[in-house]
């Protein structure tokens, strides 16, 4: 059997990171009723609250499977949405003939659905593009919970992006008086727009990015500047300028970090000759074969990421509730741009090869320089790397990127006299500085990380041990 019009599954959404199941309160539409993307479709009760769930697609509510009062696991099938507009498709035979699930027995299922009942194989059986799979993995989103809008119901990249945005919105929606899209939130924060004054035009009155931009264009006064209040006397010959929003945010975060986290610094001079040789041996091949330009930052990312899992405290974070610990190595990279300092985050760097590290680093820094970073590009970093070598800085002590407990600063690689076997020779050296949070780390534990890193940099083949 084959199908040329796939139905869209309506499933129990995950409303928060800890939600396992939810109770269906009621359907807000009846079978046969048209639904628009963004319109409320049903109400779900979680252990925290009752939430309206919006449709992710336009269509007709074709079939209701779950009844009010039923408590179902996240991802459980609640019903089907029929795409409203039948688009022309190339008909491909469906490989997996579908056994109707017990829930569907006795009901007429309007079209054949390409899915399987084996929950364990659900993710691998979901039709999804490679790009969608990559993003879902990167963001930790279960593919089977996402309705696909591609041909034959294939999940495509923007479905995953939409699901990701939705998770974020729902996670922060309750304390906010109004619904604001993540991009709008970020923009408002950056530009200092007071969201109370922005009229939302998105679904359910959600404030969208366009709404914030419109407010900005209308010349809406920005929030009060961060300059100290009271009487302020401008010294003669001085000018007063309002800091940009990026700078303001930097000022707030750095003040918070420097005044709350007790910093200490460890410095090591590294014989950089092996590192220089390693890069030299790879850089041309990488350029030619993979089209990526290998940098020292990439190599440092590589070694740090492979070392960090053995030093989990470097990735831990101090909080009032206790130590927050992480196992996935998401590393922030400080990027200097004409708009200011940005720290985009590379995900699961410990699982990436050097080529992929280099490619993603280049993508993220380009995005940062173009001002195109998305909220998800900043999030969840557990360690930060900052490199000012290209600006001829020999060594520096970075302020911790809160709430992280460690940041590694790299200076420039420079020819310097060095002593080897009681002889002064010309060598190449680099100074690495590790800044650490003394609430989380002590000198020894931070030093052991830096010691092993230095050992690897001076003898890269040891990293394979």
């Amino acid at each position, binding site marked *: 059997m084959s199908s040329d019009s796939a139905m869209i599954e309506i499933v129990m959404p995950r409303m928060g990171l800890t939600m396992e199941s939810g109770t269906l309160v009621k359907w807000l539409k009846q079978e046969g009723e048209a639904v628009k993307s963004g319109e409320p479709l049903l109400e779900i009760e979680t252990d925290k609250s009752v939430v309206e769930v919006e449709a992710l697609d336009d269509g007709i509510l074709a079939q209701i499977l779950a009844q009010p009062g039923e408590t179902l696991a996240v991802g459980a099938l609640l019903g089907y949405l029929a795409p409203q507009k039948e*688009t022309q*498709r*190339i008909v491909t035979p469906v490989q997996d003939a579908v056994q109707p699930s017990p829930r569907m027995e006795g009901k007429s299922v309007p079209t054949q659905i390409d899915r399987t009942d084996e929950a364990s194989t659900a993710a691998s059986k979901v039709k999804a*593009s*490679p*790009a*969608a*799979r*990559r993003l879902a993995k990167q963001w930790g989103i279960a593919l089977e919970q996402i309705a*696909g*809008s*591609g*041909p034959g119901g*294939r999940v*495509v*990249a*923007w479905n995953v992006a939409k699901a990701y945005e939705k998770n974020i919105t729902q996670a922060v929606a309750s304390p906010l008086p109004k619904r604001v899209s993540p991009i709008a939130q970020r923009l408002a924060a950056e530009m200092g727009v007071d969201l109370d004054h922005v009229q939302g035009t998105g679904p359910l009155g959600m404030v969208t990015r366009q709404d914030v931009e419109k407010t900005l264009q209308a010349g809406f006064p920005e929030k009060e500047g961060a300059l100290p209040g009271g009487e302020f006397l401008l010294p003669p010959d001085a000018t007063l300028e309002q800091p940009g929003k990026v700078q303001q945010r930097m000022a707030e975060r750095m003040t918070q970090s420097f005044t709350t986290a007790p910093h200490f610094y460890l410095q090591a001079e590294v014989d950089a000759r092996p590192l220089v040789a390693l890069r030299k041996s790879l850089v041309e091949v990488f350029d*030619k074969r*993979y*089209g990526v330009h290998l940098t020292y930052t990439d190599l440092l990312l590589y070694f740090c990421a492979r070392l960090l899992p053995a030093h989990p405290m470097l990735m831990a974070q101090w909080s009032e509730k206790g130590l927050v610990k992480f196992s996935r190595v998401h590393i922030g990279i400080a990027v200097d741009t004409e708009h200011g300092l940005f720290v985009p985050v590379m995900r699961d760097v410990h699982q990436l090869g050097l080529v992929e590290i280099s490619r993603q680093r280049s993508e993220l820094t380009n995005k940062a320089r173009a001002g195109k970073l998305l909220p998800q590009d900043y999030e969840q970093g557990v360690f930060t790397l900052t490199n000012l070598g290209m600006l001829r800085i020999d060594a520096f002590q970075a302020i911790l990127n809160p709430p992280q407990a460690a940041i590694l600063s790299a200076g420039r690689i420079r020819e310097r006299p060095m002593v080897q076997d009681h002889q002064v020779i010309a060598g190449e050296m680099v100074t690495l500085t590790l800044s650490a949070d003394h609430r989380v780390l002590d000198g020894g534990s931070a030093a052991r990380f830096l010691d092993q890193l230095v050992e690897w940099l001076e003898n890269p083949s040891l990293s394979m041990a």
Partner: protein
Amino acid sequence: MSMHELSFAQAIREALDEELARDENIILFGEDIGKWGGVFRTTEGLMEKYGPERVVDTPLSEEGYVGLAVGIAMTGMHPVPEIMFGDFITLAMDQIVNQAAKMRYMTGGQVKVPITIRATMGGGRSSGAQHSQSWHAWFAHVPGLKVVVPSTPYDAKGLLKTALREPNPVVFFEDKVMYHKIKGNVPEEEYVIPFGEADIKRSGDDVTIIALSRMVHSALAAADRLAEKGISAEVIDPRTLTPLDEKTLVESVCKTGGAVIVDEGYNRFGVTAELAAVIARGAFDYLDAPIERLGALDVPIPFTPPLEFATIPDEERIVTAVLRVLEGRRRT
């Protein structure tokens, strides 16, 4: 840089003229290329200028004069045999594939074969099944040959000049329909274009269209129409098949997430298949839709125009293929 406008045929002629003047080892062979100036006017006036010993009219005997050219190339000359209708390159296949492509290898590098074989390609002129085919894929399949498939007067001139300085056999394909229809600016100054560098003919973000030869112009027209729908298509011309600039193709698809590949050769085991494989490997994790391939239908090219046009990819089919790639993907 000062420019002048040339047709595709005039750009070819200018490249030949300049190189004949530069290197006395260059000799042209072909049917009606001398006194007549070539049926497509690509050698007009060259016999008068360089004499019948360097611009040689040959009998209708492709194997004969291509074989002759391979022989004199081995002695250090740089012959340029022209195949008036690329369909009949089949007659010279042994000379190209078994002789020209193999000699450098089989002599351990002692003998080079600097030969540039110019051949036409392409349908759309109602020339019938034996005068409309595009056989560039065959030569891209053979190790030892370089294959050039230019799309603009600028590229044609710069790449032909590179071919004429190349110590190895090159098969250079010129689309017949472009000769007089496609015009473009070409610098007055000397320039060459290296092999193995794709050219981004138009930048875009939503989908990558990879096209060769005349199909580049169909792809650009399609991109204009897509722009009206708010779709931003990137159009890339590989320009040479061997060597192939895989990096530019893969990078573009990593950026856009989708690819439509357009070539006038046959789809089956063709250029579109090879390029699709390159992309599937290089950009796998970035693909958001299956790769679309548009080539000639797998039938002899019909003589009657309505059927002939139905077999060759065009603007309309490129637009449709792009929409298929983008189905359900856009945030609109």
